[in-house]
């Protein structure tokens, strides 16, 4: 009877959690309902975790003598992992969000891989299907763990340069083949076909070792600009691994949650890759930047510098301004100053909009979060497709810390490495101002034709310092008028 009740409660809690996850994600379709969505999902998580303690009533006979120790270990792990990650998550800077997401993602992958390891070492799997699914989930989880750690190191600046050596792709393929071969040996021996040479646990260790190495090798050569795509892919990987381990443990909540996340990660990956006009395979297997040797001879003229105050006054008397922020804005910690300047423009009845490119920032949507953090209302923030036709009727386009996403070469120059990438049509505005640290190329090392166009002026300097000058210039006008 007690067993029956516990089964019922666990299954009910898991079902509820699965529903709340889906419903919570559904509520993310608008910024107004999204906060309640994540709270509902959180409720589901708490219920599922608490209910899972009822597993204790139905554990294996072999594990029964260890029950007290295992419960102690579980509570300790929940407290250390949960409280630790919670405290870090509460105070991490918004600019550091991509590496934070990468590390949480790696943790999920590691947990899925560990579950696979427990099942394999304990010999809990029954039949070939379950064994193969366990191995597959373990492989994907382990790759996601080590790959995410490398992605974190790159985003955090611990690893500065992409590591590329000749024949790397060959080495990666060899490690992958080796991992699959080891998995084959494990399956074959479980089915009683073929000898083992080594003990079963040794093979399992080798299997996970190979998978972890593969994750590292696969991520090392990928350039920093491609990291958003990589985080999305590992998000999908971890989801997939969780879903597969859910099947092994016969837990539909894990299967559903994992698969939903897998689909979400895949969709975001596709969106990001499309925004960069590259295929996913291209991001993973070719090295961006190596062949990016643009011909600067194609561009005539020179960059025209101007004063911050002149640009500010021009904007003050414009009727419409579109601001295109890039990661350079966040790197200069200038979001607050930018919004202060925007508020002055709004007070002067200037129409101001923000235009966000899908790959602005280091992960999808990061620029939106950074603007929201500075207090910018989200109804002023527009995405590429929604705003691109407005530029032609706009007085001033202000580009801050963005480069490739406004490079018209993407439309016209077939030899450019970014040819075909959708861009923001800043060049179609009547006047363009670009705030930039100095002359030079962008993150990807491509010359920007926009900077040489006749209706474009450059404001050189640190974004924050320039904005302070702009604010002063506009305030000065107000004081003079009053």
């Amino acid at each position, binding site marked *: 009877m007690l067993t029956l009740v516990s089964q019922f409660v666990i299954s009910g809690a898991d079902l509820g959690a699965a529903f709340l996850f889906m419903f919570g994600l559904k509520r993310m379709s608008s910024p107004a309902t999204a906060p309640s969505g994540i709270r509902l999902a959180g409720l589901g998580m708490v219920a599922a975790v608490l209910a*899972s303690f009822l597993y204790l009533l139905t554990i294996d006979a072999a594990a029964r003598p260890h029950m007290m120790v295992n419960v102690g270990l579980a509570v300790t792990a929940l407290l250390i992992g949960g409280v630790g990650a919670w405290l870090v998550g509460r105070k991490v800077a918004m600019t550091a969000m991509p590496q934070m997401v990468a590390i949480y993602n790696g943790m999920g992958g590691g947990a899925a891989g*560990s579950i696979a390891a427990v099942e394999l070492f304990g010999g809990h799997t029954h039949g070939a299907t379950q064994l193969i699914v366990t191995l597959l989930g373990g492989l994907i989880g382990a790759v996601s763990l080590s790959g995410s750690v490398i992605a974190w190191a790159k985003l955090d600046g611990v690893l500065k340069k992409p590591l590329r050596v000749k024949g790397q792709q060959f080495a990666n393929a060899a490690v992958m083949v080796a991992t699959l071969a080891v998995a084959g040996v494990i399956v074959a021996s479980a089915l009683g076909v073929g000898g083992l040479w080594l003990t079963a646990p040794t093979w399992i260790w080798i299997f996970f070792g190979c998978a972890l190495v593969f994750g590292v090798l696969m991520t090392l050569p990928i350039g920093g600009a491609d990291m958003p795509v990589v985080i999305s892919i590992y998000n999908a990987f971890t989801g997939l691994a969780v879903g597969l381990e859910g099947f092994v443990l016969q837990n539909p909540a894990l299967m559903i*949650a994992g698969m939903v996340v897998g689909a979400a990660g895949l*969709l975001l990956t596709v969106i990001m890759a499309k925004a960069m006009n590259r295929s996913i395979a291209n991001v993973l297997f070719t090295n961006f930047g190596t062949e990016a040797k643009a011909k600067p001879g194609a561009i005539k003229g020179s960059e025209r510098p101007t004063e911050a105050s002149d640009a500010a006054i021009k904007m003050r008397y414009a009727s419409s301004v579109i601001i295109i922020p890039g990661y350079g804005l966040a790197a200069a910690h200038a979001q607050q100053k930018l919004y202060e300047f925007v508020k002055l423009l709004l007070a002067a009845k200037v129409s101001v909009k923000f235009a966000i490119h899908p790959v602005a920032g280091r992960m999808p949507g990061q620029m939106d979060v950074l603007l929201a953090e500075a207090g910018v209302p989200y109804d002023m923030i527009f995405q590429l497709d929604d705003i691109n036709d407005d530029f032609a009727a706009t007085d001033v386009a202000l580009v801050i810390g963005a480069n490739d996403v406004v490079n018209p070469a993407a439309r016209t120059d077939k030899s450019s490495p970014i040819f075909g990438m959708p861009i923001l049509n800043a060049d179609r505005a009547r006047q363009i101002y670009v705030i930039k640290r100095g002359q030079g190329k962008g993150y990807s090392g491509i010359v920007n034709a926009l900077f040489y166009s006749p209706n474009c002026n450059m404001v050189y300097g640190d974004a924050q310092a320039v904005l302070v000058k702009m604010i002063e210039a506009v305030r000065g006008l107000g004081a003079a008028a009053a």
Partner: protein
Amino acid sequence: MTFDIAMTGFVALYIFMLAAFAGWVIIGNVPAILHTPLMSGSNFVHGIVVVGGLYALFNASTPLEQAIGFFAVLLGAGNAAGGYAVTDRMLAMFKTSETKPKAAHAHARVHHLKKS
């Protein structure tokens, strides 16, 4: 009567297929402006793996299984708690022009209204 869940391969594939479709459609409706919280939020959702970790740890009978199970719960709990913390924080930042922003911004806002 029992509430045991026994899934054969094909039933599992049906669940996977439906969940993947549902995920694709639900996520496709999320506006680009929320893509970062969406990613950390879906990150949080796969933190449900902690439940699987607990199951594995409770059924562990050797020190090796216990150690790996502990690791699984530790990582899973970190994934879930961390993912929730950052997502909740980010979503709380999104305000419209109509809603009165809190604290620091409220002051600036009043100031700006007076001017215009």
